[in-house]
């Protein structure tokens, strides 16, 4: 699209129309001394000088690629095949915005359709949208959807061990709503859902890595007439039963783990899928497969009557958008991995995390919490966990998250994560360093 600046004549006509003589007059409300303040910036630098300065700053970062990295807690260090970046950065795809015009955007629309199809299979859901800002906003939108669906039902059950930042996002979304959040301990079957409950949220696994009985929670929620939302680790879906198979009505996930760098916290990808029964309540874009008038396959936005450009203030959501590029990377990752590849990644995560847990548990003073876990687990530490994190980080080992960051009472608990990226020697180094650090 050409950008045509307005001409002197255009500006003159516009100024005349509003009865102002000059552009400067528009800024009359700003005191003259403040209009062009002296900024006192340093002199400009050459490209080489700038490169050196930025590189020196970047070298101060502690990154997953240069350390033994055992930090997860919502952001996961997984392998990203080179093909993901190579394909996603092609000029045909790389754009700041998702083009939805079907006559010029068949490639992008097909990529969205394929993303939705693969994610739907992964989740065991019938419909997946494209997409949300991140896992936390996807979950908040899911709760909002269930709340609106529930009519007079004002109660929402959240797990005690939900990611604290996710809880914060949900509470922000609901700041002006008549809603009652109830926290439940342990597995979702412990949520005392009743006729006033719109939904029960299950975390699969929970913030502490624990895998609870998801099916039992579904049965209890449904018996009370409530919807059942499962927030899942999408990598884990590679080996464990999908949330859909276990009775979820709505599934959400953080898609960062699927081919996207941790990027200091974003941009990430909020994934959401629902059963066919709920598809007209689903927020966000949905691309469908269609035929043109000659019977050729094509892709278009579908079920758009839910959306803001048609339904205005009554749209299912006015605060979500497709994370086009991150969604595309996720699509490429899923296609590259396939069912077998994803199962392999999940299996590696499982094995490495369980090896790490077994070895750490042998270190005197350290105790791994019981229960079933996938790639993340809580370790009780003999000294405050925050001290361990600080000391080991100096040795280029990031041992995990000290739970005291979110809960001041949990001083001696460390959340450790291992993925396919964690080598045996890194795990052994972590274990020997834990021994040393408490001496």
């Amino acid at each position, binding site marked *: 699209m050409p950008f045509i600046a307005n001409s002197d004549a255009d500006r003159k006509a516009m100024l005349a129309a509003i009865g102002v003589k000059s552009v400067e007059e528009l800024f009359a409300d700003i005191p003259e001394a403040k209009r062009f303040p002296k900024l006192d910036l340093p002199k400009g630098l050459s490209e080489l000088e700038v490169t050196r300065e930025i590189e020196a700053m970047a070298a101060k970062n502690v990154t997953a690629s240069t350390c033994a990295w055992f930090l997860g807690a919502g952001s996961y260090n997984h392998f990203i095949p080179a093909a993901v970046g190579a394909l996603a950065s092609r000029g045909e795809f790389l754009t700041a915005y998702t083009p939805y015009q079907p006559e010029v955007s068949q490639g992008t629309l097909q990529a969205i359709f394929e993303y939705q199809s693969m994610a739907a299979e992964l989740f065991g859901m019938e419909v997946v949208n494209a997409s949300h800002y991140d896992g936390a906003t996807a979950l908040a939108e899911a709760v909002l959807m269930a709340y609106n669906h529930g009519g007079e039902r004002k109660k929402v059950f959240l797990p005690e061990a939900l990611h604290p930042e996710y809880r914060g996002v949900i509470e922000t979304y609901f700041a002006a709503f008549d809603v009652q959040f109830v926290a439940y301990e342990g597995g979702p079957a412990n949520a005392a859902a009743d006729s006033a409950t719109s939904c029960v949220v299950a975390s699969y696994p929970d913030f502490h890595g624990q895998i609870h009985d998801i099916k039992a929670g579904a049965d209890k929620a449904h018996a009370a007439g409530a919807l059942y939302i499962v927030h899942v680790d999408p990598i884990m879906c590679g080996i464990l039963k999908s949330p859909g198979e276990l009775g979820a009505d709505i599934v959400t996930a953080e898609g960062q783990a699927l081919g996207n760098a941790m990027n200091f916290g974003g941009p990430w990808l909020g994934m959401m899928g629902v059963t066919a029964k709920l598809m*007209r309540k689903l927020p966000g874009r949905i691309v469908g497969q269609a035929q043109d008038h000659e019977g050729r396959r094509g892709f278009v936005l579908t079920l758009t*009557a*839910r959306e803001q450009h*048609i*339904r205005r203030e*009554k749209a299912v959501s006015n605060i979500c958008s497709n994370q086009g590029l991150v969604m595309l990377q996720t699509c490429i990752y899923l296609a590259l991995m396939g069912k077998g590849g994803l199962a392999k990644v999940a299996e590696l995560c499982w094995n490495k995390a369980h090896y790490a847990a077994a070895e750490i548990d042998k270190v005197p003073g350290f105790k791994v919490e019981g229960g079933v876990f996938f790639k993340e687990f809580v370790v009780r530490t003999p000294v405050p966990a925050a001290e361990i994190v600080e000391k080991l980080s100096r040795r280029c080992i990031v041992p995990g998250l000290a739970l005291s960051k979110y809960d001041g009472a949990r001083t001696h608990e460390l959340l450790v994560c291992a993925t396919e990226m964690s080598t045996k020697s890194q795990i052994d180094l972590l274990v020997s360093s834990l021994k040393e650090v408490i001496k």
Partner: protein
Amino acid sequence: MKIDAKARYRSSHEYARKEGNLLVAGISDHAQESLGDIVFVELAEVGKVLKQGEAFGVVESVKAASDLYMPVSGKIAAVNEALQGDPALVNRDCYGEGWMVKIEPTVASEWDGLMDAAAYEKEAGAH
């Protein structure tokens, strides 16, 4: 534009027609024609009590989604289940098989406040 002479109308294009003690309600022929192909109808649950002007459902066509407003206050006594499987019934026969809800009215005087067929034809025709 077809008009059901026995029905009364709201300016938001819902109609209501007496059937025993109940009122049968739906959207007018003018409304279905303006909306185009109807692909989905969502209706309130039976037993729900609503006031005149409150939404009893949503009708969705290929180009728009609109709330459906109660022509009079009352309790939803029945909903047309056939619309779930075949929402286009509203396009084909909005006053007959394409009816939406049956209402047990609670404020008798509201019926008199609705437009009769002649008044509605004049108003809708003017658009």
